[in-house]
């Protein structure tokens, strides 16, 4: 009987060893991939950083107002952020590629899905970035125009413009990423519509006189206020 136990044990140990021998190379491969991946990701990060420095990416994001947001969120600068993002994505990618070798069922699918997801995530981030840029630019333009044209509540106008654009951009980003698509669409529609309605009512009732004056000034010539005041030419 003792001999039976020993031989079973030996067999079991042998199986285990075989198992290890089967999986150990694979793990080694994964580790190698991880190391290689690290190097590649690091190189990518360095190259990207140089490129971004060259195109003055920081300045661009400052203009977009993104830098201010990042600082507020205690995040590093836009260039840094992007470089790190790229580093991590690259390294992770390599690791996952290595993991595939392990041959764990089910994991393949998830990894594939992850890789498919990455581009969309990137596009969504791009949309948000440029959307922010646009929002800042247009809201500032509206602000300046309103101030110089002596419109009442220029800040309200500016903020409205900014909000509308941000909402729009966010919706597009979420749609791109595929998160709660329908919900976002409907919510955006409702919010946007409500805002417009609100503005219309507000301007309609409250801004009646203003609209009248504006239209008069623009389209009714020849009724210059005589004797009221002389205009100065700046040049």
């Amino acid at each position, binding site marked *: 009987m003792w001999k039976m136990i020993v031989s079973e044990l030996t067999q079991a140990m042998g199986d285990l060893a075989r198992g290890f021998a089967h999986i150990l190379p694979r793990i080694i491969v994964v580790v190698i991939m991880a190391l290689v991946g690290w190097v590649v990701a690091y190189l990518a990060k360095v190259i990207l950083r140089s490129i971004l420095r060259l195109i003055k990416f920081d*300045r661009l994001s*400052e*203009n977009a107002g993104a830098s201010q947001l990042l600082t507020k969120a205690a995040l590093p600068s836009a260039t840094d952020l992007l470089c790190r993002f790229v580093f991590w994505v690259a390294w992770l990618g390599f690791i996952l590629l290595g993991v595939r070798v392990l041959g764990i069922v089910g994991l393949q699918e998830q990894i594939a899905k992850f890789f498919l997801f990455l581009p969309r995530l990137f596009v969504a981030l791009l949309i948000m970035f440029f959307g922010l840029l646009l929002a800042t*630019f247009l809201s*500032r*333009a509206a*602000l*300046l*125009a*309103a*101030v*110089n*044209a*002596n419109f009442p509540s*220029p*800040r309200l106008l500016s903020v409205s413009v900014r909000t509308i654009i941000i909402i729009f951009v966010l919706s597009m980003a979420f749609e791109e990423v595929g998160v709660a698509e329908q919900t976002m669409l409907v919510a955006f529609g409702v919010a946007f519509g409500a805002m417009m309605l609100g503005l219309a009512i507000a301007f309609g009732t409250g801004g009646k006189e203003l609209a009248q004056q504006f239209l008069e000034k623009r389209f009714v010539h020849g009724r210059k206020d005589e004797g*009221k*005041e*002389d*205009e*100065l*030419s*700046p*040049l």
Partner: protein
Amino acid sequence: MAETSFLTDDFLGQLISVGEVDILVGVPTHNNAKTIGSIVETIQAGILTFFPRERAAIINADGGSRDGTRQLVISAAIGDAQSRSKPYALRTLRSISTEYASSPSSGTALRTILAAAELLRAKACVVISPESTQITPDWLAALLRPIYAETFDLVLPTYRRHKFDGILLTNLLYPMTRALYGMEIREPSALEFAFSGRLGSQFLAQNAWHDETARAGSEIQFTLAAIAGGYRICQSFLGAKEHVGTHSADLVPVMRQTVGALFSSLEPNFSVWNAKTGSQPIPTTGAKQEFSLEPLRVNRKRLREMFSIGVAELESVFQSILSPSTLAELQRIAALEEASFSYSAELWVKTVYEFAAAYHKSVISRDHIIQALAPLFRGRAFTFLVENRNGSAANVEDDIEALCLEFERLKPYLLKIWNGRE
């Protein structure tokens, strides 16, 4: 070359038949039929009186007029095939017209005139604004003689104008150009000026005509190019400049053309202006500037209001542009009562210089920087109006002179903030 294709075949044919000229009069137009007839007659009289022996041509660069402006200019020609009702002329006077675009652009009009001047090898050229209804034949002599006698390359005008006319000019363009470039040029962005053929050719070749900002504000660019190129510049007194009432909303486009062009020229011309200190008067024929003092009713209040509103609403924008101390000071004075409000010369100069530096660094969109300056300018205009409301012509001149000296005094400040990070 693609750049010269903006001259149509027809116009080129007309230029061929005009041939070499000694004097070229450029008239850029766009729907000016009301005023152009008498202006062109005055030009004709000026040429026949002061340059009867010279070969002269009038070149009209039109931006798509639909009211018969071009025909009015062409009818000023005097030749042998014309009717006898023309004034007597020793030689043929040509007058040709071309439509450079279907919408007006002062830069393209100037470019057309420069191209014509180069192809016709004109010795002396003069650009006349189609709205100068107070032009007299003497203006042509005053502008052209210094060029034609080959003493100068650029002749800028000086006028007799109301003391409150042209505040942007007297409070920003003139003092800043003077402080930076060291030349007391009263009208750096003139609508009528004369130049030599060689200056015109150089400007035509060097200027970045495809650049949108370069196309607008080409008048001040021209002056700055002449300064940068070391050309000989002088001024000539012309006479009264009509007080043209313009809608105050026109301030921003005007600032874009003039202040924007001035700011954008600072970077390429850095080597020209950074070392200059002080300023020198330039040769002037006639008065340097004259002021008329007839009473003018101006809505000063609105200027101050717009200033205050601007300071309040544009705080976020100003934070990107101005230094904290300047912004704080502006906010302080914005809160003052009208009676005690004063936008001092020093503060104004600092404001302008900080804006110039911000423009150079493109902290935000450059066009927005110019727009943001507008309400601040209104505040300065208010102070200028108040300080000089009862002032004599000499007082006004002293005030402007003081402002110029302030610009000169603070020039090192501009240099300091030019490249540094605040």
